[in-house]
């Protein structure tokens, strides 16, 4: 993993630490990585991917 540092507001950092622990993440870094990846994947996810999923899920046998 790279070593770039990101500045976070102190209050936010405390919340991150608190919720990372509550949600079972092994570290605040893992929690932050998860959140960022989730948001980025939303932006990256193409219409076609959604379209394909939608069409395939129309088959009664899968959901």
């Amino acid at each position, binding site marked *: 993993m790279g070593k770039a540092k990101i500045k976070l507001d102190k209050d936010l950092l405390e919340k991150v630490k608190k919720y990372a622990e509550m949600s079972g993440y092994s570290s605040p870094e893992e929690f932050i990585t998860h959140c960022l990846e989730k948001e980025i994947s939303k932006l990256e996810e193409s219409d076609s991917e959604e379209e394909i999923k*939608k069409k395939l899920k*129309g088959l009664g046998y*899968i959901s």
Partner: protein
Amino acid sequence: MANINRREFLRLGLSAGSLLALGSSSDLVTKVFGKQETHKKAIILGLDGMDPHLTELWMSQGKLPAFAKLRAQGDFRTLETSIPPQSPVAWSNFITGMNPGGHGIFDFLKRDPQYYIPAFSGAETHDPSKTISIGNLVFPLSGGSYENLMRGRAFWQILEDYDIPATIFKMPSNFPPVETSQRTLSGMGTPDITGSVGEFNYYTTEVTELKQDIGGGAIHEVYVIGNRVEAKLPGPTNTFKKNHPESSIDFKVFIDPVHPLAKIVIQDHEFILKEKEWSNWKKVSFPMIPTQSVGGICMFYLKQVRPEFKLYISPVNIDPADPAMPISTPESYAKELAKKFGSFYTKGLPADFKAITHGVLDEEEYLAQDDTVLKERIEMFEYELSRFESGLLFYYVSSTDQRQHMFWRFIDKASPMHDPRLVSQYGDAIENIYKEADKILDMALKKADKDTVIMVMSDHGFTPFRRTFNVNTWLKENGYIRLINNWKQGQEEFFMNTDWSKTKAYSYGLNSLYINEKGREGEGIVNPGTEKEALVREIAQKLEQVIDPATGERVITNAYVTKDVYQPQQREQAPDIVMGFNRGYRTAWSAPLGRIDKKVFDDNMDKWSGDHCMDPVVCPGILFANQRIKAESPALYDLTPTILSLFGIEKPKEMIGKKVL
């Protein structure tokens, strides 16, 4: 192509081949074929999913007199189904007289091994190869086309070689219909107008009903303002425009301020529906560019007027009077039926599974819809019977399958979805459809003379579906799949969180398991040859030993190594293992699209409570004939040479079956 990544591949829309190829034209021959007079006649009824145990039970109770009569005249056997027992696979066995290794349909879903992306296995759409762009518009210079991916020849094509006429009504896996001059209407696999299996639209003011990503339909939030609702009906993607935007039609609903009824205004239609009333078919036309539009047909159901407004619109079916895609041979056949009977369901699997699963239609509403399907089919069967003089008539019923999927929970007390309070209302839904099938058979028996051979067959039977098994999770737990991030397990489909450099096997589809093979898969790591062979045997053996800790039962009764059970012609495309699930078990809901749930096992908490994607051994089909059936254990692919033999035709060498009459 090799240089693009999986997301780029998806973005380019190269995987599903499911866009409507507008501007296409069919090369199908228009001449009606087969006018040779032959005194030999055969009527075959294909009753999807009809189960031998239930048939026998209700025959013994005197509830299926036509079936009992046919058995007395001839014979009744269980019919060996396909590996796996999925409808597209099974019907392809029947159509071609081969097993999946010959016809190349292995599962509802196939996968692109380069990018690990799933797609439907039956048909592909090819966009026009030449286009011209003017501003925001893209015009096709050559027609797009549709390709049926089933390999081998259909038996009615062989009958055609010998000038034996055939009418093939709604045969599954026959979309687009294979090239022939015989009269054929496409069946299961025929999409709706959007190119999908079927997308309903549901308009509601009730916020709690709003769900995203439901698959198979869209739920739209609407507002009643001054007793009026304004909404849009989505249509096919517009391939005439860059980026293929979705087309749509505006419509309005005027709610009666006093009575429970409403007027719907869409294009040139204005009609009034009472609460809980279905409309008849309405033709709609989606504008693409000023000179082009795509037409379809749909039905409206006014579920509720007040306090919440609820309107269901069926998937927009291809209009048989003016088909946007090829659905019949000759092209005029669908139009002829539409002229005689008006609009009718053209989409495969016509009753709306997804609407009942998501609670948009309730049981009664689903049955009402399926009754309409059945009524249309019976009218057309009467017509085809009345003009049937020689050759072969094949007629297909979907309702037997569709009702068993949804209503099995009412005859299975061990189902997690069994609700004793509803048994008095819906406990006889399956029995009733068997009785309807009996009436259809009676029509055929009355038509038959001494020269007519009658066969009744189903592609598979049915079993309860009580527990789910996520094979991808099992593969992960047993070290065959490695995730990139363990904490993301269960979140992503299409194996997006998978480290392929450390993954040895994966499952797409309902019964298929693939080895991550070097040289075949995009990021394969298992060497073909002895390394792969040993891994296939190892996984197959382990799968057959899996026990459900909740019940103590075996989950997979047979893990079929396809190299051992499939003929060779198309075997390279086959999964490496086909999982044969025990009675009561099926693959988990999310596993077919490559999601690795957190749990391996779960209860099946879906209304979809009967299934057949199991081990072929636990769900054989039926075979009745008005002659003695010589084979003790006939199989689907035996029926094909049997049909040919009725007309004195030798079976082609690629067919693996033997005649059974």
